[in-house]
């Protein structure tokens, strides 16, 4: 049970940690000043949220590791994030498409997590949902703006959605730990809002004059620790300071 709960919390936290790291890469490299600040803000929101999860995970693990150890010092196979969030910042359309596909899920997930029997998790969800509600609004607006924009922006947005679509299904994949924790009434049974998720995507994509991809093939593996080729590079950036100067603080 404890082992399952620990893994379950990492499953939630790692999505935000890796997406936050990806967005953080844009700091100083956004398409313009305003969007740069907006992406960095979302990154900071996500990193702020993961602190609460990792503190809780450290408490549950109870093996002397603190939140930083858990966030920074695991091996690649021990990260439980979905493959979607590790996909690269190919261009701004990819950044926003990735954000949009995750935000809609994240919002629905937190809505349910607020009802968790675990009071720490429901309190964290309660605190995070306002931020995520804004993220969802921000990324949805960009999907519509670029989708229903110029010929070039429409093509780029459609490319990004087509490329990332096969990563959506994994959001609803449940690991052994997930299933055990859902059974306890602590975890969120994601299957219950899977239809709502795809309906919301469809609604916004249609408003953006974009085609809903018909791909039947979906990637998965991240939640079991089997990541895409990008993950090693992300971790070498993320972990560099702690690996080079162990126990460094500021």
């Amino acid at each position, binding site marked *: 049970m404890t082992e399952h709960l620990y893994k379950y919390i990492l499953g939630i936290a790692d999505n935000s940690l890796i997406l936050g790291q990806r967005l953080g890469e844009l700091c100083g490299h956004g398409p313009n000043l305003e969007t740069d600040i907006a992406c960095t*803000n979302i990154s900071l929101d996500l990193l702020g949220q993961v602190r609460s999860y990792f503190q809780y995970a450290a408490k549950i693990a109870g093996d002397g590791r603190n939140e930083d150890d858990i966030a920074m010092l695991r091996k690649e196979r021990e990260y439980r994030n979905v493959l979607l969030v590790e996909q690269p910042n190919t261009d701004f359309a990819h950044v926003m498409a990735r954000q949009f596909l995750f935000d809609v899920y994240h919002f629905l997930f937190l809505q349910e997590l607020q009802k968790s029997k675990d009071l720490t998790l429901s309190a964290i969800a309660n605190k995070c949902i306002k931020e995520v509600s804004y993220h969802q609004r921000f990324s949805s607006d960009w999907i519509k*703006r670029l989708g229903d924009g110029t010929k070039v922006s429409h093509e780029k947005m459609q490319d990004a959605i087509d490329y990332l679509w096969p990563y959506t299904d994994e959001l609803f994949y449940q690991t052994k730990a997930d299933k055990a924790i859902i059974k306890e009434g602590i975890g969120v049974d994601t299957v219950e809002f899977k239809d709502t998720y795809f309906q919301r995507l469809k609604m916004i994509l249609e408003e953006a004059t974009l085609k809903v991809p018909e791909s039947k093939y979906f990637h998965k593996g991240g939640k079991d620790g089997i990541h895409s080729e990008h993950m090693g590079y992300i971790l070498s950036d993320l972990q560099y300071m702690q690996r080079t100067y162990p126990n460094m603080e500021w």
Partner: protein
Amino acid sequence: MKKEWPLWEVFVRSKNGLEHRHFGSLHAADAEMALENARDVYTRRNEGVSIWVVESKHITASNPENNGELFEPAQDKVYRHPTFYDVPDDVKHM
């Protein structure tokens, strides 16, 4: 094609009861984006409870060259300030 988005002026009310104050300017494609950008650029440290944005081109400004005729005539008319009254001691909060 014009590459730059138009400029917008941002006004933020920092607390209920206070007036909106000019905070700065930013670029955005339209009003909705200007509001979102303003939220991220100017209120991320909890500075505000309300935001106004207005496209800079809609602001009519006085010309600094006319400052002489516009503002200087008021400089030697101190009597326009209500400072030449003896306020009775019983009147508080003046």
